[in-house]
């Protein structure tokens, strides 16, 4: 009998060990806990989180333990007679003071972490982050680099027409590259509504407030790619503005900065170089236009061009999309429309892309204008917009006579 017990005990332990492995392996794909992260701050936060959880677990164990004991034993069905006590001031004071002391114990590490977290002196790299509906824009203030970071998950995947990538909804066209082992200062703000810049593994979450700028810092210890998302409801596209941070060594970072600055310069020049514009076929324009429209415009104006009026006007049959001059149509994309959610896309979209979108909008959904807009048309408008106004002295035109 005893040996049998021993045997089953041993078997039980073996079973536990085996299943333990399986459970832990399985738990990996079912992430249960907070990210430990790759910065000192995120690790502090993780530790605080674990302490808080432990404290709660202990309190829960005691309180629920007593309660379960009571529920099991003090039942009428077991013939238990109710006691008559209903007051005990001493006990009340005890269970006021004990939780208070526990809270003090929790407040200490929390305060320490918080004060450390708030220190943003002596940063070595400064990145300004601007959220707008529904993308992030990054400025490397000291290096003069600026770019947009858009969701790069294809529209077809969102619509379930293609299999989803591993990083579905968590990949962007332009990643934020930062060096490791350097103190990075992030300045977060917004161009329209409130967004929130969150990368769990960096331990940073900062709300992007339109008109105000708040900071956060990180010192990343491990190279790698860290993904996050906007965490403040910011409208229709809230789920579609991810953040991807790539942490690299200082050398790689400097190289990337140089390359990015060069890219940016070439891009800017290419947009206003009237001679160098490509000529595209109608088919190319329509294809590119459809892709870009679905990525950039469809959140508001909808895939079917009907919009959500009156907030987001319909493009189907709209005077902008079917009317003339076409410049009006192009200009609203280039410069946006003040007082509405329509923003300026002149820095984000290239001439080809804008030409394609305009062509698509003028020919899709029964907007059969048959117009074809070429990149050169966009470039011309850009150049016109960039011209310095002619300053004329009033006295010279006779105004002051």
């Amino acid at each position: 009998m005893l040996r049998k017990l021993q045997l089953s005990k041993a078997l039980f332990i073996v079973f536990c060990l085996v299943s333990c492995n399986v459970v832990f392996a399985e738990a990996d794909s079912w992430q249960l806990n907070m990210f430990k992260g790759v910065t000192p701050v995120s690790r502090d936060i993780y530790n605080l989180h674990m302490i808080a959880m432990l404290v709660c677990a202990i309190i829960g164990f005691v309180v629920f333990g007593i309660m379960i004991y009571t529920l099991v034993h003090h039942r009428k069905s077991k013939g238990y007679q109710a006691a008559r006590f209903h007051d005990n001031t001493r006990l009340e004071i005890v269970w006021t003071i004990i939780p208070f002391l526990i809270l003090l114990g929790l407040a200490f590490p929390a305060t320490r972490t918080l004060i450390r977290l708030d220190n943003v002196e002596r940063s070595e790299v400064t990145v300004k982050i601007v959220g707008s509906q529904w993308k992030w824009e990054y400025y490397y203030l000291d290096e003069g680099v600026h770019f947009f970071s858009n969701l790069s998950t294809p529209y077809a995947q969102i619509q379930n027409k293609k299999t989803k990538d591993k990083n579905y909804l968590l990949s962007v066209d332009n990643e934020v590259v930062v060096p490791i082992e350097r103190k990075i200062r992030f300045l977060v703000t917004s161009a329209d509504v409130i967004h929130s810049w969150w990368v769990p593994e960096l331990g940073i979450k900062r709300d992007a407030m339109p008109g105000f700028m708040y900071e956060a810092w990180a010192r990343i210890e491990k190279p790698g790619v860290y993904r996050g998302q906007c965490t403040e409801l910011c409208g229709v596209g809230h789920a579609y503005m991810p953040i991807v941070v790539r942490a690299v060594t200082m050398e790689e970072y400097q190289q990337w900065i140089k390359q990015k600055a060069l890219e940016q310069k070439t891009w800017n020049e290419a947009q206003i170089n009237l001679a160098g514009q490509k000529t595209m076929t109608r088919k190319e324009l329509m294809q590119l236009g459809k892709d870009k429209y679905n990525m950039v415009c469809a959140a508001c104006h909808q895939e079917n061009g009907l919009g959500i009026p009156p907030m987001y006007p319909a493009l189907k049959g709209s005077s902008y999309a079917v009317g003339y001059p076409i410049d009006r149509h192009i200009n609203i994309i280039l410069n946006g429309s003040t007082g509405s959610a329509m923003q300026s896309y002149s820095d984000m979209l290239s001439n080809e892309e804008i030409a394609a979108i305009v062509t698509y909008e003028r020919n899709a959904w029964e907007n059969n204008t048959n117009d074809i807009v070429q990149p050169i048309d966009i470039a011309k408008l850009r150049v016109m917009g960039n011209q310095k106004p002619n300053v004329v002295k009033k006295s010279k035109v006779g105004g002051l006579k």
Partner: protein
Amino acid sequence: MNPDITAVDHHDDHGPEQGKGFIGFAKRWVFTTNHKDIGTLYLLLALLNFFVAGGMALLMRVELFHPGHRFIDPNFYNQMTTMHGLIMLFGVIMPAFTGMANWQIPMMIGAPDMALPRLNNWSFWILPFAFLLLLSTMIQAGGGPNFGWTMYAPLSTKYAPPSTDFMIFSVHMMGISSIMGSINIVATILNMRAPGMTMMKLPMFCWTWLVTAFLLIAIMPVLAGAVTMMLADRHFGTSFFDAAGGGDPILFQHIFWFFGHPEVYVLVLPAFGVISEVIPTFSRKKLFGYNFMVYATGCIAFLSFIVWAHHMFTTGIPLGAELFFMYATMLISVPTGIKVFNWVSTMFRGSMTFETPMLFAVAFVFMFTFGGFTGLMLSLVPADYQYQDTYFVVAHFHYVLVPGVVFALFAGTYYWLPKWTGHMYNECLGKWHFWLSTISVNILFMPMHFVGLAGMPRRIPDYALQFTNFNMIITVGGFIFGISQLLFAWNVIRTIRGGNKVDARVWEGSHGLEWTLPSPPPYHSFTTPPNVH
């Protein structure tokens, strides 16, 4: 004291005759100034809204069952999150507790009716129209409000659909209704108590409601102010919340949460009251530490006014403010802890039976405490940086509000329904409702903690692949929970229409004035005040 005798001749009195047929029926309910009729109306409205807003939640869960755009548009999804929140708070929990207050408070304090019966009628009849107005926004051009129930500016001002104005008006109407209802409750409790019913003899439910009513009178004007400023920003050229005009979007959050945090306790204090009534009855033992329960309620109410910024830790408020609000928030767990300890002590060495109300009350203590734990974790500012606006927060407040407050509503309904109708509810059905709800509510909300910690933001209609398996579980839990509530509705309707007759006492362990009246109680509760010793 023998209210039974005076009450008997009124037994079949259903108020003044208002005419025959449908007109008579409609007039009876529209013109009624009786606290029981109005209580019933409140409770029925809440039940109806519970299924409306619950249906919205299920729509969202359907969309979230699997990643990718499936059934509803992101814009419609955002409207659902907004409506679900607004209706569940203002249309389910608040009216349900006001309904219970209407039914119970006069009976508990030995009064014939509420102090201000006509006001009572008005404060109810505003509500159906407020909700019709709110729901009508869904069919207006541009869709309904789509910025979440927190209505953060500037998403709710410059970037919001035109129907927002209707929502603002509807919030004003709800606010007026709540303020009037609260004034009525305060007036009733302070002035209409039977001789000998001193303040420190008041049933806990009356105490918590008294404190809640004061909270409501203090905060509803603040909400009205916030939405009026929104309205002014939208149409009258002001810039309260627009930095370009010298305003500040964070100002909105400060004002909103100055309303919003006490509002949380408006929802939960009456629930504490219900639980403090149910547990002693089924433990056959007096409530442990009555005095401290009263002090703790007052303490929670006071603290609730100085913790609002813990909803805004990531907005960039200064370090000193973060520390202050962190400490203040942590402090709230002390009086809340006292409540939990007192409930446990009430049960300790009692002679317990587990009828449906008690089951819900016990589940409340477990799961509300669990929600309190995550609340304590959320109060720690650095940790909050990771939790803020993720599903962890969603899990936290749903644990407090669903297996917390809504379970207290179930407990209260099962507890008092036999008194109200004179019929016993179906115990077997009640137990089924309890077990299905308790199991499914955990399947529904427990995994939300995990996806939140793993990095899933709230209010998104589509999510990254690693959150898929938990979201599927959540949706399944949500549907089981939703469907089991039909059992509740059925049980309530059955009980109203008939069932085993109950005596005045209903429960073996019940104490208090309401149990001295026959079941169902007479139309005018206590025409001569009882004497309380």
